[in-house]
């Protein structure tokens, strides 16, 4: 029985009701010593509630928590840490102007002669820890000067510094680049070797399969099953999560490209700090094909998209939409009128006016044209008519034409953006990270819509940081690295090949 390790943490029959509805319905969960146990579920499945109960932020209505076999009751996060449970939230709780070491020891600072903060001791202990676990973080660096991935490691170090042996990570990869995520997984493996038990909350199937030993799937507050990694498949997990089959591989026919709809020639673009982020990019997209731009975040994709859509001035080069060539100072209005649709990468910052209702949001490009308005006079009823139609056609849930965009869930907000852009029948649709932050159901929806647009003969330019997304949607793949297109592939290209180019493993193709 030596192999039968007793659970370090066990949740039994946890039930939590909120005004009549069940957030957690008799959920059992156990964590073995030194394992990574993933908690998988869609947005709203009850993952966070369960972990907030474990962490002492919420009290369960029924059920019990056992640590090392003994029942415990936490009334605050402090209790949880005292019992050896640490949590890393999605939003970091760090003090930007303090150093890494200061942040790590905050609240339990080593002191000299009772009162003086022993900074050297703090730095030394943090440096020791960073070395042990391969954290690659400078203890003396200020937190606002380090990357998001490093900040996350500081959060993990904070927990470890307090001698926790259970670490809960809430959607840890959501804020990371693929490379940073890979680094994080390396760290998690080290931690596992050192005997730390990890709860890994996620809604991304591929990373769960990569890092977890066991996977518990939640759906609508209920535990569906706990499976071990061996034998689990993405399709099987997706079915458990959503309760039906999900097309992970997008069903699409071969592209039949038509006329050139978008042509970009030798484009140079500067970022806000006047650094050249796009360095001579040329490509074209034809009607009826999906051209994807793959690349690690920060290689000029954002600037490229902003330049093409007229949101950012271009230094030199031309952009042609539907045969009309633009150069010099473009504007969003110019590009919209030329037939460009744009699903921006950040729907809150740009894609939606959150305090506008859906009718107003859906009219964002057309409010100044008949029938919405005539001679500057607006007809709100016509905005509502359009909204009623689009809400039905695009299956937008959670509100009507007069609901504020703010009140919708992320997936439905994105549907509003997609509906607005697609309904205008754009010659070119630029989709920048169109599925970021969405759950499986919504991702599937957006993907199907993009393919449908392609099949309707429009050109789609997809910019995505998710290689999976690029591979499953694209008819042609361009790889962007340090502001240049470094590779071009067919839709059936291999993951390794593209991954290598994304990381700069190849020289630019001749422009």
């Amino acid at each position: 029985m030596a192999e039968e390790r007793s659970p370090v943490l066990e949740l039994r029959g946890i039930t939590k009701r909120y005004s009549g509805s069940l957030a957690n319905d008799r959920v059992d969960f156990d964590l073995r010593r030194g394992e990574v146990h993933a908690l998988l579920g869609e947005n709203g499945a009850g993952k966070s509630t369960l972990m907030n109960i474990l962490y002492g932020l919420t009290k369960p209505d029924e059920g019990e928590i056992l640590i090392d076999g003994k029942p415990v009751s936490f009334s605050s996060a402090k209790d949880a840490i005292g019992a050896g449970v640490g949590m890393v939230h999605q939003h970091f709780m760090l003090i930007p102007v303090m150093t890494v070491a200061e942040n790590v020891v905050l609240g339990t600072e080593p002191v000299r002669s009772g009162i003086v903060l022993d900074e050297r001791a703090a730095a030394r202990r943090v440096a020791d820890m960073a070395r042990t676990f391969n954290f690659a973080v400078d203890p003396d660096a200020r937190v606002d000067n380090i990357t998001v991935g490093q900040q996350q490691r500081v959060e993990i170090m904070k927990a470890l510094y307090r001698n926790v042996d259970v670490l809960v990570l809430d959607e840890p990869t959501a804020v990371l680049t693929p490379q940073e995520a890979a680094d994080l997984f390396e760290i998690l493996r080290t931690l596992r070797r050192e005997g730390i038990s990890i709860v890994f909350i996620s809604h991304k199937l591929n990373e769960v399969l990569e890092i977890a030993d066991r996977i518990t799937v939640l759906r609508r507050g209920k535990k569906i099953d706990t499976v071990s990694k061996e034998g689990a498949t993405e399709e099987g997990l997706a079915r458990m999560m959503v309760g039906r089959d999900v097309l992970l591989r997008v069903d699409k026919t071969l592209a039949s490209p038509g006329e050139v709809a978008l042509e970009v020639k030798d484009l140079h673009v500067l970022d806000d700090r006047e650094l050249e982020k796009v360095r001579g990019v040329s490509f074209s997209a034809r009607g009826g094909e999906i051209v994807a731009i793959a690349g690690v975040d920060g290689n000029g994709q954002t600037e490229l998209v902003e330049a093409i859509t007229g949101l950012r001035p271009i230094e030199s080069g031309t952009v042609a939409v539907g045969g009309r060539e633009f150069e010099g100072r473009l504007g969003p209005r110019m590009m919209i009128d030329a037939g460009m649709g744009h699903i921006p990468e950040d729907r809150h910052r740009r894609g939606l006016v959150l305090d506008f209702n859906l009718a107003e949001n859906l009219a964002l490009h057309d409010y100044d044209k008949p029938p919405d308005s005539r001679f500057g006079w607006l007809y709100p009823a016509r905005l509502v008519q359009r909204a009623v139609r689009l809400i039905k056609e695009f299956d937008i849930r959670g509100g009507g034409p007069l609901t504020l965009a703010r009140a919708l869930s992320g997936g439905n907000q994105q549907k509003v953006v997609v509906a607005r852009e697609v309904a205008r029948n754009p010659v070119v649709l630029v989709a920048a990270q169109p599925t970021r932050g969405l759950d499986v159901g919504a991702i599937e929806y957006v993907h199907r819509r993009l393919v449908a647009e392609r099949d309707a003969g429009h050109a789609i330019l997809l910019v995505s940081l998710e290689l999976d997304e690029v591979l499953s949607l694209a008819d042609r793949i361009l790889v962007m690295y340090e502001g240049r297109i470094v590779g071009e592939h067919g839709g059936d290209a291999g993951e390794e090949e593209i991954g290598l180019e994304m990381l700069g493993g190849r020289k630019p193709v001749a422009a």
Partner: protein
Amino acid sequence: MSSQAEPTANVPPEQEPTPDFVVRLGAAQRAGGLVVPVLTAVLAFLAGGIVVAATGHNPWTAYKGIWDGAGFNWLFHIPWDTNTVHLDAFNLSQTLLTMTTLILVGLAVAFPFRCGLFNIGGQGQYLVGLFVANWIGVSFAGWPTLPHVLLGIGAAALAGAVWAGIAGFLKATTGAHEVISTIMLNWIAIWGGQYLFGQGGPLQNTYNPAAPESGTVVQSARIPVFWGNPVLQGLDYGFFVALVALVVFWLILNRTTLGYEVRAVGFNPEAAAYGGINVKTKYIQAMAISGVFAGLAGALDMLGYLFQFGVLDVQASQIGFLGIAVALLGRNTAIGTGIAAFLFGGLLYGTTRGLNPNVFDPSLAGNLTSMIQGLIVLFVGADIFILYIWNARRKLKLRRRAEMAAT
């Protein structure tokens, strides 16, 4: 899956653009609905009452005195006697006269607010309108009344638009913050007035070179009075201009493409730009329209009952600043601004000239009245604080809901 899940629960890097003060206050104000402004006013009156009581006076008598001073008791005389020989009716006509100005300077703050701009320059725009109206009103003697009045009003509105438009233009071209530039424009207007009306100034009167005062608006440029005695400062037709301005304000915002654009920019300039709206142009237009309202206020005051203005008046004039309080208390909406202007109009008149000197010790009255006014303004400022508490409670509720629904 529950669609009520907190929408951003799993969408970390997506944040709204860091909103500046105006946007934050605007959002907070919308969240407060009707409850907060009413609560604000009630609290201000309560605190004012405590101050009155602390001086050994009866707060009830004091408020009754202000109520009567504002002429509100007239509203409860049935049958209504419209003869302003009676004090109640006269007081009410004066309250409405003050309200006329307050509506317009309130709208001058409210309109750019909806575009995300904080116009502190209502006073300067009001003064510029006043100057131009005086100039037109003193010149062109012999014109028929209607064209003369319309010319005066139109020119003053235009001047206000240009004056405010400068701040909008600076914001659009150089990014200069409108709060700073409108404050500076206020001072330019004040010193400009000193010069214009001062000794040897181009608008100084022609009959008494020793007096630093403007000329008097000729009869043909005076807006006719419809209630009360014109000699005793009756209520003129400008009152209806202000009421129409409220309607126009609402129509522009809610029934024109310009209003749509202004609101989009006010809520989220980046999304507006993405939608194809020229944000910079909207800044200039919103400020210019704001200046039209403030300039109108100056014109109606000059052609309605002031007729003359002096260097000392320029220095003492404060009414444009009250527009900020009116707009904030009125939630930057048409109806709210109208109600707040009525309230402030009553307070302003009811605590000053309308107040029965027997209510307070005459020497105390002056101080007490400005104290009560000050408290009101203070509490409108405290609005933000009340909203903070109000929202904290709501957020708590929302968080509970989100916890329930979210993962």
